[in-house]
């Protein structure tokens, strides 16, 4: 079987980040997953975690510059891994950093790039990626000809875990050319870190203009916390100042595909639906019985979210599972 490079983005504590399971799982569907990472020094516990997630090889570029030099250590490590491993594809989780790293690598390695795949497979010797485009209204299968396929993966799209393996470990001292890289001057852990990240959350509770006020928007946060969900918002709610723009879901803003999406006071304009209609289960509460959000909701309640949500919270609190 051919080698498949699985890029491992590290978390703040230096261990494999939340995307490691997904990228190794996706790689195992195409060939032998080789975990590739840039780190100040490769630890035994990192190797152990990657082995448990199915890495048949671990390839580490070691440099002290990982925390001060933006992305160049990662891109250069991947370029070295491509030379050494001759992989059939490189997979990278589509995060803010991941896609910039993948883009630079695709150019440096004279490859081709497929962005935001929700499935990958081998077909007639080709690596085929499936993407959902235009807000999930079309599904497109594509491949890369005459070059290395570099594929970014939509977070949350790959379920399950590859079988544990005993990886062959390679680490090399990395020489990093800092001239073509930005410097990292500071890092502040997210203030909202008790909630899951909106892009990758399994559950999202989002609020819209129908909530009428910033005070009522607190219900969104309370229900999110009760469900262990991330907080989202429609553009109208952001424009009304109910919440910061980082929570915006839709065509401009974040696209999400969680297990559960709860829309409170969101009418469901086409721009909003484009960012959430691939969610597995959609629940909507809206006063307007004709709101388009009901056309895609698995469970719709015509009513006032500010009445229903407090009762739901109460019912959840007293519920005996």
């Amino acid at each position, binding site marked *: 079987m051919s080698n498949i490079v699985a890029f491992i983005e590290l978390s703040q504590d230096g261990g494999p980040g939340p995307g490691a399971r997904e990228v190794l799982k996706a790689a195992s569907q195409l060939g032998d997953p080789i975990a590739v990472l840039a780190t100040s020094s490769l630890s035994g516990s990192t190797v152990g975690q990657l082995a448990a997630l199915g890495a048949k090889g671990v390839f580490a570029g070691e440099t002290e510059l990982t925390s001060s030099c933006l992305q160049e250590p990662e891109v250069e490590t991947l370029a070295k891994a491509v030379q050494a491993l001759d992989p059939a594809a490189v997979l990278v989780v589509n995060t803010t950093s991941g896609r910039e790293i993948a*883009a630079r690598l*695709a150019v440096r390695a004279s*490859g081709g790039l497929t962005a935001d795949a929700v499935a990958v497979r081998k077909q007639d010797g080709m690596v085929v990626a499936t993407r959902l485009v235009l807000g999930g209204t079309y599904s497109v299968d594509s491949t890369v000809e005459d070059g290395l396929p570099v594929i970014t993966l939509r977070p949350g799209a790959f379920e399950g875990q590859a079988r544990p393996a005993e990886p062959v470990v390679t680490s090399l001292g990395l020489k990093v050319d800092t001239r073509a890289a*930005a410097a990292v001057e500071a890092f502040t852990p997210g203030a909202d870190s008790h909630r899951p990240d909106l892009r990758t959350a399994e559950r999202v509770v989002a609020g819209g203009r129908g909530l009428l006020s910033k005070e009522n928007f607190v219900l969104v946060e309370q229900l999110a916390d009760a469900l262990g969900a991330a907080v989202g918002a429609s553009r109208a709610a952001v424009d009304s100042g109910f919440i910061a723009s980082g929570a915006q879901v839709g065509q401009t803003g974040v696209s999400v595909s969680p297990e559960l999406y709860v829309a409170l006071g969101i009418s469901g304009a086409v721009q909003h639906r484009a960012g959430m209609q691939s969610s597995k289960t959609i629940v909507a509460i809206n006063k307007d019985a004709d709101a388009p959000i009901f056309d895609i909701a*698995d469970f719709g309640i*015509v009513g006032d979210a500010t009445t229903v949500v407090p009762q739901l919270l109460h019912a959840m609190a007293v519920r005996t599972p």
Partner: protein
Amino acid sequence: MKIIVLVKQVPDTSEERTLDTESGFLERDPQGNVLDEISERALEVALRHKDSHKGTEVVALTMGPSDALKALRKALSMGADSGVHVADDALAGADAMWTSRVLAAAASAEGFDLVITGNESTDGKCGVVPAMVAEHLRLPLVGSLDSPGISAESVSGRRECGTGTMTVRAGLPAVMSVTERSAEARFPTFKGILTAKKKSVKNVALAELGLSGATVSTAGRSVILSVARVEGRSGGRKIVDHNGSAATELMEFLADRQLL
């Protein structure tokens, strides 16, 4: 300082957008096309610097069919000094790799201290062109900035990265990309619209950049194998609430699906 802003014309997101299921290409109805909102924000970042720093030159650069001139005119009416339009029949259906190579070549030919672009377009949403352009130019990318800053020697700003916020900086020349959290774009003034018609727009063909359809499409082509319309979702159960009565049913629905 000379700033090149990469701008893109995209289908208006308030209209339904369709793909040609034969070619996999976006059906671009010239009437429904607009300057991408994220391009407007990128331009705004450049224009604010120009407002406070005399002698700043802002050039809007686009690649696209002849109709993309409309997007350039909008950029000029907002305040860009001139436009560059790379148009060539060989570019039809260009993927991100190809597009970035052409944009990088056009930016080099024009000359710049800083390239500013949106982090992702509202049609492609791939978010890879800024980093590809930077790599072609062998320049640093200060990418996905929520709060971009420009000084005489460097560019900097904050970027969200899942676990927190990073402050990043690079010396000029550099490539910067901005998110929808950056500057809110201005509206063109009446005077801006009038003067835009007199501003220069340079038309550039591939050959003038030393490129041809054959050279830019040799390695790493994305090839579409099949396109399918995804079955639309249909609404499920819909109930009317009376003073919160629906809460119990909703909880049962969530419990049934193991979502509690």
